[in-house]
């Protein structure tokens, strides 16, 4: 397989152990060309450690990770060709200006990166502050400078660790727009985040990691579909409607939410329920399908596995399968 064909990120059995603590536990990742790949998990789940291993900053205790078929541990800087990004907050030399920082990084990139400094500063709208020292920059400006520094490398794979953390709502929106645009330009994006709306809006595939293990990997749409077809019902008499629904075959997980009655069922049973409600003389105000939100699925996956072994296969990963979802 040539480097151009090799997947942008492929991790197999990645392990990182700090003495007694198993920070990353046999993680497999498959990021394909063109993916906007969400890497989700609660704080301390092992996301950043995994990304550091991918970038060659941390030596894995076991397993391998390859970027376009190249192992950063074996090939060093060459494995990072076409790869850019940052883990945790991007860091710069506070005593230098933004432009000087980018000049330094461009010099360390080679490949004519210095000629792109003006362009990337324009993209992140930092051109007017280019001659200001980074020490005086806000968190949001540093995040944007981090993106600019990444773009200097003309990446094919962009690895971003919580890029919107600490940004104000407008900054978050702009960051999403920028990531969307970079993805549209053909850059594969590996986006670590615990901001679920961000992932829901940007990503097509996700891995959800909890306690160092991947508990789901696959298409976001598949994840939501496997979360179960839910419905929300609003009626003129909620108490009686709940009684009718609970008595009806094929209707599960009936509960009042304050905004109506949520339940799970297939379409045939929903039709039978509506007839039963009519027979009982209960007026239906609205009945609408509610796909499981990423948030509810995320909590279902991560909270059900806290402190217990993942109910996954031998390799600790459930590809395209919702682990912990209700039957």
């Amino acid at each position, binding site marked *: 397989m040539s480097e151009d064909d090799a997947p942008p990120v492929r991790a197999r059995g990645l392990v990182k152990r700090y003495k007694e603590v198993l920070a990353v536990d046999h993680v497999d990742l498959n990021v394909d060309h063109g993916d906007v790949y969400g890497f989700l998990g609660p704080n301390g789940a092992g996301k950043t450690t995994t990304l550091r291993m991918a970038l060659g900053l941390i030596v894995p205790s076991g397993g391998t990770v390859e970027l376009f078929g190249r192992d950063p541990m074996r090939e060093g*800087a*060459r494995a990072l060709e076409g790869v850019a990004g940052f*883990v945790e907050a991007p*860091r*710069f*030399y506070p005593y230098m200006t933004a432009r000087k920082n980018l000049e330094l990084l461009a010099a*360390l*990139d*080679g490949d004519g990166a210095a000629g792109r400094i003006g362009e990337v500063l324009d993209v992140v709208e930092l051109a007017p502050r280019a001659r200001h020292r980074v020490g005086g920059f806000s968190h949001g400006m540093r995040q944007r400078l981090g993106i600019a520094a990444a773009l200097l490398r003309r990446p094919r794979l962009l690895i971003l660790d919580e890029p919107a953390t600490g940004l104000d709502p407008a900054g978050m929106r702009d960051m999403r727009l920028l990531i969307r645009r970079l993805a549209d330009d053909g850059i594969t994006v590996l986006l670590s985040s615990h901001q679920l709306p961000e992932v829901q809006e940007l990503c097509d595939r996700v891995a959800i990691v909890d306690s160092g293990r991947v508990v789901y990997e696959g298409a976001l749409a598949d994840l939501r579909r496997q979360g179960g077809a839910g419905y929300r019902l609003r009626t003129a008499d909620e108490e009686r409607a709940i009684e009718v629904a609970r008595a009806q075959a094929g209707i599960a997980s009936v509960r009042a939410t304050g905004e109506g009655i949520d339940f799970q069922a297939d379409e045939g049973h929903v039709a039978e329920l509506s007839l039963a409600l009519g027979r009982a003389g209960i007026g239906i105000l609205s009945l609408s399908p509610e796909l499981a939100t990423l948030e509810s699925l995320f909590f279902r996956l991560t909270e059900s596995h806290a402190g217990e072994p993942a109910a996954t296969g031998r390799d600790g990963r459930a590809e395209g399968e919702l682990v912990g979802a209700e039957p």
Partner: protein
Amino acid sequence: MSSAATAPPLVEARSRPRRPSTLTVYRWELRKLVAQKRTYLGFVLVCALPLIFVIVENIHERQGHRDNIFASQISQSGLATPVLMLLFLSVFMHHVVVSLVAGDIVANEDGNGTLKTILTRSVDRGQVYAAKLLAAFSYAACALFLSAAVATLAGVASWGFHSITTFSGTVVSAPKGLLLVFAANACFLIPLLTVVCIGVMLSTVTRNSAAAVVGTIGFIILVLIIGQIPGLESLHPYLLTDQFENWHGLLRTPTDWAPIGHSAWVCALYAVPSVVAGYLVFLRRDVAGG
């Protein structure tokens, strides 16, 4: 970033990128040093001491015999000043100054998180380590020769550019004396760069600037103490601190090259393992700071 949606594409057709050389990384390490105030603190120290010395000597205008042959000539030739300053500063002060940079050069970047920034670019870890070591060497050389230049200028300005008597009692002309002053500093650079190697190694291993600086200075103090313990005289030729006087042979007639050759290989015994250990640790270490 709202204009992002209208900006030109950032992905272009690519060929095999050209990787930067270690020289490029070294140049940027120097620029980083130049941009930091800490760098100038050491320079100010090594420049201020000769100036203070000359001012005090001018005020007191002491004459007559002193224990040291160069101290006796202080008001007779300005070239005695840089030799005396090298005698004083080579005991401890120069090592403190270079330790401030050597002990900080890796650990500081680790602590601030900028190490991860540069290690995710197109340079290998070995290049970064080599560039940092070379930058610390350059700083040490600059501090040493700057101090010598300031001492020479201040001395000559106060007492003139005259011939000078060496350790062996031979009078040498002023131009030759000047050459010997800078050759003596060049010889002293050998043990001084060894201290740099130890500082950079400790900076890499400890990941803590303060620990690395204190560790380097502490090591020198320890060796100085060992040199004072009775019964350990046989160790003296192999102690790093004894190599700090290697340049004395240059100020004798005929020139005694033996101490210089001896110090070269003894210093290598300290420097090479330090450099190799620091390099190996740097290559395999986890960069988790920042």
